Every structure is written in structure tokens, then in C-alpha cells.
């Protein structure tokens, strides 16, 4: 049975008019879910309703068989009772407290300090523990926010576009931290993100939202190909240029920080434009592997 069963309806009043959010899904224990979709499709609102920061109009949230929210039974647990791990887009660190104090604040009454010490260590915050948040870089603040969200040992970790404000290198490093935490603490994680590379790197399953509904749900590859490719290896990237050479086209694709060139015929090239997200896969040939020294 799924760890979390979500079935939520809510009418949101946004700048672009009303949006009726209607989300229904089950999430298994240990899954890493990415919520993907354009701005204003209800990704953050979904996260906030799970955390208890926003009240749905109707529906149910059932976690481990316990209803956190149920409109038919008038149950609505407070955020304090749900005690999920939540990382806000703006980090929401307490400016009056140092890194360590931010973590200590999160401790519950009977909890010992050991969790704080452990998290300071794994998140490489030992040297920064006595600094105030406003003296830290974006990545350091984000690590603090992530560590703080885990002090209570939540089952469920909710991340609201945690990496959107960081540069690519910092982003990549933090993705590794998040994956590490997800695995070593046995978390179930839901992350809102716009970044396709991030989804491929991190998600077990992606939920694509459009107009307040789940448009599709499945492994990250569903986002980019109607028919699934069972490639020996596959990467996603962004088209940088399309150059015609004689009768073929050379498509330059940026994958991670590397540019690769792919040959395409006229029909394939005509479907692509610069800036498109593409899947680059190989099926018939065995890729070569060499050790770098």
C-alpha cells in the first residue's frame, strides 16, 4: 500500500484568474517524486496542502493509514502535528540564529543534540555553524535549510524549488546532498522543480502538472518521448544549433556541461529548433568506456 494517498481539490485565486486544482495520487515509501510543470499550475500549493500550510477545499491526505486531512470527517492536522521536513524556496532560515541555533531550534523536547551534530557533519556545516544566515552564500544557506528540515527525522521531505536560485555547479553539488539524505535517512521526498536535468538525475517518478491536474505520471523519460526508448544509454540536453551539411544535419546538443554533436536527417531536423529539450540515446551500438586519469 502506498505510504501517502493524496486526493485534493482546491480553487486557487491567482493573478491569471482562478485555477481549480484537482490532484490525486499515491506515493510509495522511499520514492523520490518530482512535481514538474509550468508556473501557476499548483505545484507549490500541492506541497503546502500536504504540509498543512494551506487548507484544501475538500479531499483526503492519508499517511501510513492515518488521515492528516479529511474533509468528510472534518480532520485537519496542524503543520506542527504533521511535522514534515519542508525546504522553502527562500530557505526561510531564522536570521536571528546561527546555523547551529537554527538546527537546535528544530529539535523536539526529548531529542538529544546528536542529530544536530550529525547533520552539521554530513552537510559540511561544521566550519559555518557559528555564522548567521545573512553571512552565508546561497548554497550554504540551502544546506542549512536542508539540514534543519531533517533534524526532526521526518518521514516525508518536501522541497519547493530548493535549487532555483543557485548557479549550475552549486546546484549539482546540492542535488548530490539531497540524494544522499534521501537515501541514508530513508526519506520519501517530493520536490518541485522546473529543471529537466534535475528530474533525470534525481526522480524515481515525475508528476507533470498542467492546469491544476496531473497530466502524466511515470519515470522521467515520459516527459520527452511519446514512445519510450529502451536505449543502452540516454541523456537529455538542449539543442544549441542545427547546421545543414550536404544532405545531413549536425545538431549540437548541450548535455550537462558537455556539447555533443548528433547527426540527423532532414525530417528529424525539421522537428527541432534551437532551445528544444531533446533525448539523446543510443541503442544498436555498444558505447566505449575508457578510464580517465
Amino acid at each position, binding site marked *: 500500500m502506498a505510504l501517502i494517498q493524496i486526493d485534493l481539490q482546491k480553487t486557487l485565486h491567482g493573478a491569471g484568474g482562478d485555477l481549480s486544482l484537482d490532484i490525486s495520487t499515491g506515493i510509495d515509501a522511499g520514492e523520490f517524486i518530482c512535481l514538474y510543470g509550468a508556473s501557476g499550475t499548483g505545484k507549490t500549493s500541492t506541497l503546502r496542502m500536504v504540509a498543512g500550510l494551506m487548507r484544501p477545499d475538500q479531499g483526503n491526505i492519508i499517511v501510513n493509514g492515518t488521515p492528516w486531512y479529511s474533509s468528510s470527517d472534518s480532520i485537519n492536522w496542524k503543520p*506542527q502535528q504533521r511535522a514534515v521536513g*519542508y525546504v522553502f524556496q527562500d530557505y526561510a532560515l531564522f536570521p*536571528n540564529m546561527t546555523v547551529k541555533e537554527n538546527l537546535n531550534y*528544530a529539535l523536539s523536547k526529548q531529542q538529544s543534540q546528536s542529530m544536530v551534530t550529525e547533520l552539521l557533519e554530513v552537510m559540511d556545516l561544521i566550519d559555518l555553524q557559528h555564522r548567521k544566515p545573512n553571512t552565508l552564500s546561497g548554497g550554504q544557506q540551502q544546506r542549512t535549510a536542508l539540514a534543519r*528540515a531533517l*533534524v526532526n527525522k521526518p518521514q516525508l521531505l518536501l522541497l519547493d524549488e530548493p535549487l532555483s536560485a543557485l548557479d549550475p555547479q552549486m546546484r549539482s553539488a546540492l542535488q548530490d546532498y539531497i540524494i544522499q539524505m534521501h537515501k541514508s535517512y530513508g526519506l520519501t521526498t517530493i520536490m518541485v522543480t522546473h529543471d529537466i536535468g534535475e528530474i533525470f538525475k534525481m526522480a524515481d517518478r515525475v508528476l507533470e502538472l498542467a492546469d491544476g491536474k496531473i497530466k502524466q505520471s511515470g519515470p522521467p523519460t515520459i516527459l520527452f518521448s511519446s514512445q519510450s526508448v529502451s536505449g543502452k544509454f540516454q541523456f537529455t540536453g538542449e539543442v544549441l544549433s542545427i547546421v545543414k551539411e550536404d544532405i545531413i544535419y549536425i545538431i549540437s546538443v548541450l548535455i550537462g556541461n558537455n556539447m555533443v554533436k548528433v547527426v540527423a536527417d532532414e525530417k528529424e531536423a525539421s522537428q527541432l529548433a534551437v532551445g528544444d529539450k531533446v533525448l539523446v540515446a543510443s541503442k544498436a551500438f555498444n558505447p566505449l568506456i575508457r578510464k580517465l586519469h
Partner: protein
Amino acid sequence: MIEWSPIILTFQLALITTVLLFLASVPLAYWLSRTNSKIKPVIETLVSMPLVLPPTVIGFYLLVALSPRNQFGAFLSQYLGLELLFSFEGLVLASIIYSLPFMVHPIQSGLTLLPDSIREASFVLGKSRITTFLKVELPNIKNNVLTGLVLSFAHTIGEFGLVLMIGGNIPDETRVASIAIYDEVEALNYSTANTYSMILFAVTFIILLGVYFINGKNLNKTWR
């Protein structure tokens, strides 16, 4: 040699007023910063009224309300034993009303400017509203709180019209420094009036300078 009692009385009044006003203003400012209630503009207007009304207007209505001939005043004196007219307690009450905007406004604006996510982060970490307020919200608006405390204190020292209306000029009870200065000038004791005035001037100058100094330094630290 001058009488010290008006000076001492002034600072006693300012101190007690500031403490009580702080305790009353914090819940009010918190409510104003969070509520979407329809009566919010009305309450905000009432809080701000002392800024624009002559102190004599407030003094006049307090005089009427607290008079033992009125129901409210009679109730206070009969059941609570409070004789608020021409007494120190009455001055404290009047000063609280008179300085209300100076305490409520800075605290309210500080709370309004705090990002919601900070409050929500604390809730998600399992902390109650009260813990969140005392440990997170209040410490993060401490400059606003300091401004409110000092402005209320200094403003109470500067009261005159209101004290004259409902306090009168009773030595050791309601004869604060501002009244004493007026009294001494009336009696042509210019040198005594000058001494009182100099003391008030110096003390309030130092207090305000301290606030600007501390707030300026904190701002530099935060926005470096």
C-alpha cells in the same frame, strides 16, 4: 536648589507607561499584522488618532469618562477602588492611550515585513504560535521593538496638555516636569524653569541619539 520630585515623577510615569504599553501593544500589533478583518481599518484609525488630535481632546473625553458622576467612572471607583482623575494611575492610563501609535506602529510594520515563510518554517518544525512569536518573530524585529519602546518613553516625557487636563498640578502625584516648567514660568522663576528644561532636553536628546546610533549600526550589519 530645585525640587527633584517632578523630574523623578516624569521618569516613573514614562517607565511604567512604556512597560504597560509594550505588553498591550504586542498582541494588538500582532493581530493587526495578521488579520484580514473588516474592522482592521477602524482599529488602525483609532490607534493613530492621538497623532492628529490635540491632547486636550483626549484629555477632555477621559475627564468626562472617568468622572465619578459617570457610570464608567462610578463603576471604577465603586468596584475596583480606582480613582483615576487627578491621580498618578490616571496619568498612566492617559499616557498609554496617548502614546499608543508610537508603540503599535513600529511593531506592526516589523511583523508585516517579516516573510511568511519564516513563520511557516517554525510551524512545520513543530513549534507553537507562541514559541514562534517569542523565539523567531520578536527577536527578528528587535530594532522595531526598540524604536517603539524609546519613542513611547520619550513621547510620554513630552506630554503636557493631557496631563494638565486630567492630572492637574498635585505635587508628588501628578506634577510632572512639563507641568512644573509651566508653573515656574507662570511664577516668573525662570532659572528653575531653565534647569528643568535643560534636564529634559539633555535626557531626551541622549535617548533619541542612542536609538539612531544603534539602529544605524544594525542596519549596516544586516545590509553589508
